[in-house]
């Protein structure tokens, strides 16, 4: 029982990190109607950027975000402008190919500069832990969870309390109508992609502290992130957050009850079961041609 409880707590803590990464992905989908298959690679890129700064300047991994998040934001704006914006016809399908190519390119470059050996961001608090009842929680999970909570909070605040957030939500609801009332959708799209990449950087640093990673780690990550946003309902931030928590708790509990090799499988089984009942996902809206 304790093991299950411990797994559930760990699931919630890591779920927070996945919630942040999935939010960026679902935001990008919502604004641009593209499936960013490269999102996992962006997270890994963020982790490597933090790794490079931490390794060379000895900065605390969390502090590296001050550098990596703006860099990733700028890179996102550039990538969107150069590669996503030119896609006019058959956007959904072509964007998959483009973002997949970006993922491959990033994987190749990271492999070239960092080799394919596994690395990990190390600090004093990634092994230190404190007792909660009958089990121990490592500090890094708490810190990572709080960081992701703070950034998610900022993201929601920006979306629901600022004019620019209104422009983003308008674009998500109806691109053409948003354009008609004066929203510069190209600009909104570029910035949304940048925000998605900045959140990927934040998710990446926590991922890099809690997992060993190499340039090929993005496949595993993207399959999970895509599953999460489909489960939550494409384009729904609330859905992404809840789905991330549900998925990670399921995964960690399965891992504790059966064996770690079936943990990822449980992830996909939940997706299948939920889609049987609700093909539009938890918070998705069933709109013609959109599912």
């Amino acid at each position, binding site marked *: 029982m304790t093991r299950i409880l411990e797994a559930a707590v760990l699931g919630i803590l890591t779920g927070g990190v996945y919630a942040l990464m999935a939010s960026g992905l679902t935001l990008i*989908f919502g604004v641009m109607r593209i499936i960013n298959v490269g999102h996992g690679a962006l997270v890994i890129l963020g982790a490597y950027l933090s790794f490079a700064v931490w390794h060379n300047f000895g900065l605390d991994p969390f502090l590296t975000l001050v550098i990596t998040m703006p860099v990733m934001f700028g890179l996102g704006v550039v990538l969107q402008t150069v590669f996503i914006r030119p896609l006019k016809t058959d956007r959904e*399908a072509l964007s*998959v190919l483009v973002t997949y190519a970006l993922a491959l*390119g990033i994987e190749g470059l990271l492999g070239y500069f960092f080799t394919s050996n596994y690395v990990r961001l190390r600090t004093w608090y990634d092994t230190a832990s404190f007792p909660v009842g009958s089990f121990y929680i490592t500090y890094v999970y708490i810190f990572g969870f709080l960081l992701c909570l703070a950034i998610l909070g900022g993201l929601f605040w920006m979306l629901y309390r600022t004019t620019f957030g209104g422009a983003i939500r308008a674009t998500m609801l109806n691109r053409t109508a948003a354009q008609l009332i004066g929203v510069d959708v190209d600009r909104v799209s570029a910035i949304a992609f940048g925000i998605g990449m900045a959140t990927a950087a934040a998710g990446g640093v926590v991922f890099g502290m809690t997992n060993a990673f190499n340039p090929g780690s993005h496949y595993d990550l993207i*399959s999970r992130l895509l599953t999460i946003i*489909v489960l939550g309902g494409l384009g729904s931030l609330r859905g992404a957050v809840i789905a991330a928590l549900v998925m990670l708790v399921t995964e960690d509990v399965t891992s504790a009850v059966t064996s770690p090799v079936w943990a*990822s499988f449980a992830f996909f089984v939940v997706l299948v079961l939920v889609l049987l009942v609700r093909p539009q996902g938890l918070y998705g809206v069933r709109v013609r*041609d*959109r599912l």
Partner: protein
Amino acid sequence: MRLVGSLTALKAAGLVLAFAVALALPAFAPDPATTNIAVFTMMYVGLATAWNIMGGYTGYISLGHAGFFGFGSYALGLLLARFAIAGGYSAFLFVPVAGLLTAVLAAGIGWFALRTRAATFVIVTIAFMFMLQLLAENLVGITGGGGGLSFPVPPWHGGDFNIPYYYAMLALATLGLGISWRIRFSKFGLGLLAIRDDEDKALAVGVPTGAFKLTAFIVSATLVGMIGAVYGYYVTYIYPQFVVDPLIGISMVLMVFLGGLGTLGGPILGAVILEPAQLWLAYHFGASRLYLVLYASVFLLVILLLPRGIIPSVGELITKWRAGVGGSKGTGDPLPKAVSP
């Protein structure tokens, strides 16, 4: 009208010529390096053609076909092991059985995945691919897990090793092309194209969309499974990440897009251009990680420069040229654009 007729004759002649060249290829280029490229190119001609039956005709983009590829591969390997078949031509007789098993799997997956549409469908197919990969990895008792699975070694050796596989791939590609052609000019095919253009309207005018989509999905997956089976036998040793490889799944999609989505010749053209290019890059830069960067660049160039594919772009040019030269506006392409081959 005469122009249209002669164009069709030209196409038919080109097809016969291409088939004759493909048939005779090992005779005038027998060295193993070339036939190896030929095997893989023919494999992708088949894969892209098969993928196009679902993705091109119905517009449902599956990124999970690598799952069926790997499943077919494992199915043949396990069948050969179970019935203790020695390496040889008889092993090829089990390829259709592997195809049949893939069809059963595709019926189940398709029934489920086709409850969703567009972007959700894309992601669900990816999820199923990773599920199959995980199953191959975890069911150690059946598949051998991460340790992989070996195929029986065929009795033929040396310089001619590749040739039986080449003809097996050619046979499957021809079969796929024949099926694709039959579908394309049937009522069933028209129904699929209607689904691509507007599924709800298609349903409203009486196209049994659910059954049609599922049938196309099964046909497409079965062909891919059979090709995967021959591939496994060719490489003689497989493991989960190697045959259920997302890169194989996306490569066939890219080839179809390069050649022309939903056209008959597009997948062939895309495969014949891209696969040798990919092998060339792998051969010259494969040792370094830069190979992936170069391949990604080719990828991006193709999509950004030719988003609609070669055949539709060239077709448009010809139509324009015809309208300008002959002044035969009335006798132009008799088919609307969406259904022109």
